[in-house]
C-alpha cells in the first residue's frame, strides 16, 4: 500500500509513481487448503463427500474381486469356470474371452484375409489422430486423407477387388469390432453435414423445403430404428427392383445414418436458435453470402454451443450400431451375445464376462469421444470468458 494514507486520499490524490504490473499472487493453496475448500467447505459438502466415498468403497472392491481376484484366467472349456465345492466363488471367465477374441474383433471375416482388417484399423487410427491432434503437421492433407483416401481404400480393402487380387468378402461375413467401427464411422461422418442441412431446411423460409425437413425429421425420429431396419432387411426387395437390392450392411448404414441425421438436425437447430440476430446482421453487413455466413459465422458458434448434444448423438449412434444385427450382421455386442450361447463355455459367469468386455469397449470409445469433445469445448470457450 504505497499511498496508503487514506486521510490524504480523502479528497484529492495524485499518484506519484506509476506501479508496474506484478505477477499474480501464487494462489494460497496447498493440498490441505485445496481439500478444505473443495471437499469440506460446508456441511452439505462434507456429507456429499462421505456419501460418494462410500459409494466407491461399495462398488469398486466388488468389481475388482469379480473381474480380477476371483476370476478364472486360463482353461480350455467351461469346466474351469464352473462352481465346484472346491471353488465356491467364481468370478469372470476370461479364457472364454481369450478364445473368442478374434471372433469379437473380426466376426466371420475369413481368417487368411484378416490382415486386411488390421490394415484398415491402422489407416483409420492414422486418420483420426491426424484430424484430431491439433498440432499435427499438414492437417489440410489430413482432411483429404481422412475423407477421401481412407474411405476409398478401406472400401476396396475390406470388401475386396478381384482386379488387384483381393478376393471379395461378402459383408455378411464382417463382424465384431470391425462392423461397429465401420458403421459408426460412416454414421458420424455423414450425419453431421446431413443434419446441418436438415436443420437449415427446417429454419428455411421456403415452405416446401421446410415441410420436407420437418416431415423427415419428425418421422425418422418418431419410428424406432429397429422397425425401420426390419423393414429394410426383409421388405426392401419388395420396394426396389430386384437387381438394385442393395447390400445388407449398406441398408443398415443408410438407416443408421438417416436416423443420426434427424437427431443431429434437432441438435443443430437448437444451436442455431441461440445465435443472436446481430451475428447474422454482422455477417451480412461485411458482405458474406448465405452459405459463407452460415459456414464462417453462424455454424461455428452454433455447433460450439451444441457440442454436448452432438456428443450425445454420436454416443447414441455408436451404440445404435448394434442394431445392424437385425439385418443379420453381427457387431461386437452381438458377437458376444452369440458366443455366450456356445455350450462349450456354458457357465454361470460367461455372459457377465462377455458383457464386461463389451462394457469396457464402449466405455473406452465413448469416453474417448466425450473427453475430446470436452477439451474442444474448453478450448473454444476460452474465447468468451467474461
Amino acid at each position: 500500500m504505497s499511498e496508503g494514507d487514506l486521510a490524504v486520499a480523502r479528497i484529492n490524490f495524485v499518484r506519484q509513481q506509476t506501479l508496474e504490473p506484478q505477477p499474480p499472487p501464487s494462489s494460497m493453496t496447498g493440498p490441505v487448503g485445496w481439500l478444505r475448500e473443495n471437499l469440506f467447505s460446508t456441511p452439505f459438502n462434507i456429507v456429499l463427500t462421505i456419501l460418494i466415498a462410500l459409494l466407491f468403497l461399495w462398488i469398486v472392491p466388488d468389481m475388482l474381486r469379480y473381474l480380477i481376484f476371483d476370476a478364472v484366467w486360463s482353461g480350455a472349456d467351461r469346466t474351469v469356470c464352473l462352481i465346484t465345492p472346491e471353488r465356491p466363488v467364481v468370478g469372470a471367465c476370461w479364457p472364454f474371452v481369450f478364445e473368442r477374441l478374434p471372433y469379437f474383433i473380426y466376426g466371420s471375416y475369413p481368417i487368411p484375409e484378416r490382415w486386411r482388417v488390421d490394415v484398415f484399423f491402422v489407416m483409420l487410427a492414422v486418420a483420426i489422430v491426424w484430424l484430431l491432434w491439433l498440432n499435427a503437421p499438414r492437417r489440410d492433407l489430413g482432411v483429404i486423407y481422412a475423407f477421401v483416401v481412407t474411405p476409398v481404400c478401406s472400401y476396396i480393402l475390406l470388401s475386396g477387388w478381384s482386379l488387384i487380387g483381393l478376393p471379395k468378402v461378402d459383408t455378411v461375413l464382417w463382424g465384431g469390432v470391425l462392423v461397429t467401427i465401420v458403421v459408426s464411422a460412416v454414421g458420424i461422418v455423414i450425419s453431421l453435414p446431413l443434419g446441418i442441412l436438415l436443420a437449415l431446411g427446417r429454419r428455411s423460409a421456403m415452405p416446401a423445403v421446410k415441410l420436407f425437413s420437418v416431415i423427415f425429421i419428425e418421422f425418422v425420429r418418431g419410428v424406432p430404428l429397429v422397425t425401420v431396419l426390419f423393414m429394410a432387411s426383409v421388405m426392401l426387395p419388395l420396394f426396389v427392383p430386384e437387381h438394385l437390392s442393395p447390400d445388407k450392411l449398406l441398408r443398415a448404414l443408410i438407416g443408421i445414418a438417416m436416423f443420426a441425421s434427424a437427431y443431429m438436425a434437432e441438435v443443430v437447430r437448437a444451436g442455431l436458435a441461440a445465435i443472436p440476430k446481430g451475428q447474422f446482421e454482422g455477417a451480412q453487413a461485411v458482405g458474406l453470402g448465405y452459405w459463407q455466413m452460415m459456414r464462417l459465422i453462424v455454424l461455428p458458434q452454433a455447433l460450439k454451443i451444441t457440442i454436448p448434444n452432438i456428443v450425445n448423438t454420436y454416443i447414441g449412434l455408436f451404440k445404435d450400431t448394434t442394431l445392424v444385427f437385425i439385418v443379420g450382421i453381427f457387431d461386437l455386442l452381438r458377437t458376444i451375445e452369440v458366443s455366450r450361447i456356445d455350450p462349450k463355455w456354458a457357465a454361470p459367469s460367461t455372459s457377465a464376462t462377455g458383457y464386461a468386455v463389451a462394457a469396457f469397449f464402449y466405455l473406452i470409445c465413448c469416453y474417448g469421444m466425450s473427453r475430446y469433445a470436452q477439451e474442444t469445448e474448453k478450448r473454444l470457450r476460452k474465447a468468451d470468458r467474461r
Partner: protein
Amino acid sequence: MAEAALKIKPSRLTNKVAVEIIGMNKWYGDFHVLRDINLRVDGGERIVICGPSGSGKSTMIRCINRLEEHQTGQIIVDGVELTQDLKKIDEVRREVGMVFQHFNLFPHLTILENCTLAPIWVRKMPKREAEEVAMHYLKRVKIPEQAHKFPGQLSGGQQQRVAIARALCMSPKIMLFDEPTSALDPEMVKEVLDTMVTLAEEGMTMLCVTHEMGFARQVADRVIFMDAGQIVEMNTPNEFFSNPQHERTKLFLSQILH
C-alpha cells in the same frame, strides 16, 4: 397513480462510509488489471470515474458488487466486507444497483417485467406496487409507452434507459453506472443526467463511469481518473478540470473536443 405515495426514495445507508476499497489488486490470468486501488466513498457522495478505454474502470466497479473477484486487498460495502461468504455478497448486491455498459437486459421478458422482476422476487413487493414503481421510473426515462415491448424491439438508447430504470426500481442505496449515457442522444443524456442529479439530491451514493464531462462538472463530488489499472488522480471537479496535476490527466483532458 399517486406517485407521492410510492416508496421510491432510496433507502438510507446504515453506515457513513458507503464503499471502502483498501489496497485492492486484481489479475486476469497474468494480466494485472487493477493495481493497488484505494478509495473511500462516503454515503451520499457522487463519484465520477473517467479514463482511457481499457484502463480498468468497468472492472473496478464490477468488483464492488463482486461480479469480479479481487485477489488481494479489501472491499467493504456499507460495512460488509466482500469475501467468499455468499450471504454477505447477496446482502451487498441487494443494496447496490448497477447499470451495465452492455445493458444486459433480459431478452425473454418485457420491459415492464425486466423492471419488476427483482422488486417482486428480492424485495417481495406486491406485483401491483412493483409495476407502479416500474412505470414511474420508465416515465422518468421517457419510455412508458414501450413497457410491453421486448428488449429486442427497442432502439439502443431506449434499451439503455430501460437498464437505468431497472436498476432504480430496486431503490438501491448505492448505484454503479457503467457509461449510462453512451447510447443516448444529447437530449436524452440531459434527461438521464437530470434523473441522476435528482437521485443524488435525494442522497443516493453513486459511482459513475462516464465520459460526459458536463455531468462530472455538474454533479460529481469527486472525479477519479484511471489509467492502466491505477487511480492516477482524484480531485473535486473544479480542481480536476481547471488544474490537473498528473501528466497523464493533462494529456487526457487536453484531447477532449469542445
